[in-house]
C-alpha cells in the first residue's frame, strides 16, 4: 500500500478544518448557555417554573391558575402591586391562549381591596361566568376566565 503524502495531508487537513469548525460553533453554543440572563424556564419552556425568589413577606392575595393558558395548574401568582394578564411578553402573567389579547386584563389593589379590570380585550373577561364590564371587586374564591384560561382569586 502506498501512502501518497499529498493525499494523506489533504485527509488530515480536511479533518482538522472540520473539527475546528465544529469546535467554534460548539463554543458559541456554550457561550449562549452561559449568557442566559433570565432564569431559564423548565426543560420544555411551556410550563411556568417554580418561583425562584421567595417573597420577602407573606403576600395576602393570589391568583391561582386553575386550567389552561399553558400555566401549571394550581400555580400561585402573588398579587403584590397588581398583575397584568395577557398573551404578550409585556404581561406579568403571560398566558398561551388563542382567545386572549396581548394585554387582556389586570388585577390591582386599591385601599386594601383587589379589583379586576378588563383592558378592552377583544374577547372579554368572565368574572364568575359573567362578562366583566370595566372593573369589579374581587372576593375570595372568585373565578376569572380569559379565553380558555381560568384563574381563582384567593385571599390568604
Amino acid at each position, binding site marked *: 500500500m502506498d501512502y501518497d503524502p499529498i493525499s494523506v495531508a489533504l485527509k488530515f487537513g480536511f479533518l482538522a478544518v*472540520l473539527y475546528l469548525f465544529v469546535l467554534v460553533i460548539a463554543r458559541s453554543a456554550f457561550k449562549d448557555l452561559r449568557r442566559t440572563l433570565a432564569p431559564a424556564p423548565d426543560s420544555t419552556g411551556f410550563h411556568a417554573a417554580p418561583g425562584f425568589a421567595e417573597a420577602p413577606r407573606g403576600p395576602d392575595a393570589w391568583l391561582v391558575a386553575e386550567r389552561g393558558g399553558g400555566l401549571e395548574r394550581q400555580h400561585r401568582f402573588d398579587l403584590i402591586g397588581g398583575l397584568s394578564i395577557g398573551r404578550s*411578553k409585556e*404581561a406579568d402573567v403571560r398566558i398561551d391562549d388563542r382567545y386572549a389579547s396581548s394585554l387582556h386584563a389586570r388585577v390591582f389593589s386599591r385601599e386594601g381591596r383587589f379589583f379586576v379590570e378588563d383592558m378592552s380585550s377583544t374577547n372579554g373577561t368572565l368574572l364568575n361566568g359573567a362578562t366583566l364590564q370595566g372593573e369589579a371587586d374581587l372576593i375570595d374564591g372568585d373565578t376569572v376566565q380569559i379565553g380558555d384560561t381560568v384563574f381563582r382569586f384567593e385571599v390568604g
Partner: protein
Amino acid sequence: MTSARNRELLALVPVAVLLTAGFAGVFSQENDQLGNLSLVYGAYFLAICLATHVYLRIRLPNADPYLFPLLATLTAFGLVMIYRIDETLARDQANWFVLGLVLFALTIHFLRDYEVLERYRYTIAIGGLLLLLAPRLPGIGQQVNGAYLGVKVGPIAFQPAEFTKIAIIVFLASYLREHREVLIVGARRVLGVTLPPLKHFGPLLVVWGASMFMLVFIRDLGSSLMFFAAFLALLYVATGRFSFVVIGMLMFLVGAWFFASTVPHVHERVEIWLHPYRDPEESGYQILNSIFAQADGGLFGKGFGQGLITVPGTDQALLPAAQTDTIYSLIVNELGLFGAVGVILVYLLVTARGFKVALLASDGFSKLLAVGLSSVFAIQAFVIIGGVTRVIPLTGVTLPLISYGGSSIVANFVLLALLLLVSDRARREAAEPPGRMATMGPAA
C-alpha cells in the same frame, strides 16, 4: 460583538475550504495530480453559499448564524463523497443543491408570516399523506427493494416521504399547540406514572395507527419510525410528560413487532438485521460489507478515493448503494472514526441550534415547529446511521443532505428555511428590551 450574519459569513469560509480539500483529495487519488479544478469547484460552492448568505442578510438578518453553514457542510460532504463515487451523479447533486437553495429562498419569500401554515394545517396534513401514498398508485409508483418510497411522473422522480415529513411536523405542531391542554388536564397518576385520560388517547392512537399503516402500506420501517419518533418528541415538548413518550415507544415496539412477523418485506428486513450471516452473499451482503467498510476505515480512514466500492477488477458492487444507503459507511471507510464522529457532531449541532431556536421562540406554534423540524432531521440521521451500523434494521431513509437524491436535498433546505424563519422572529423579539418578568410566588 459581531452580528449574526457576520458570524455566518465567517463560518462559510471553512465550509468552502472543506469542500476544496475534499475535492483535491479525490482528484489527487484519481488523476495522480493536483489540478486547479478543485479550487474552481470550491469557488463555485463558495459563490453559491455567499449568494444565499446575501439573501439571508436582506430577508432574515436576525436568523440563527450557524444553521446554514452547518447544512452547507453536510452538503459539501455529500458532494465530495458522491463525486468520488460517480462524477455525473455529483453533477446532478450540485444541481439539486442549487434548486434546493432556490426553493429555500422561495419559502422564505412566501412564508414570511409562517403562521398561515396553521390555518391550512388540515390541507397540509392531507396533502402530505396523499403524497406519502402516491408510491402505491399504479403508473406513477415505484417499488425499490420491496419498499414503496418513490414516485415517477414522466421524467421527474422523487421520494414523497421527504416532503411529507415537513407537512406532518407543521400539522402536529399546530394541532398540539391547540390541544396540549386537554392532554395534561385530567391526567391521572397510576403507580407513579402519569397517564393521559383515556379519551385523550385518541390523537396518540391516530398517529400510532398512521405510522403502523405506513409500515404495512409503504413497507418502510425507517420512515415509519422517523414519523412516530418525531411525533413523540413533539408530544413530550408540548405536554412535558415523559410517560407519554414511554407509552408511545411501547406501542410502537408492539406494533412493529406484530407487523414484522406478518408483513413479509418488513419481516425480511428484520431477519437480515438479526441474522446477517444467514445469507452473506445475498440478503446480508449490504449490511455486512457496510460494517466491514467501517471497520476497515480505522481511526483516520484510508483517505479520499481510496475506499473500495466495487470488487477490484470487476463491476460487482462491494458496497451496494454507496451513494445513498451506505454513504455513511463510505465516509467512515475513507475518513475513519474521526471523520464519522465529525459528521455526527455536525448533525448534533444542527439539532442543538434548532432546539435553541425553539427555546427563544415566544409562541407555542413556533416552539413546536422548531422542535419538530430539528427532531425529524436528527431522527432521520439516526435511522440511517443506526441502520448501516446495525443498531436498527437498515431501511431506505436518506442521510439528510449527504445521500444522493434531489428530494432529500430540496426538502431539507425547505426545512431549513422554516427553521430560519422561526429563528429570525424569535431572535428579533429576544433582542428587544424584555418586558417585566412574571412575578411568581412560591409554588403551592
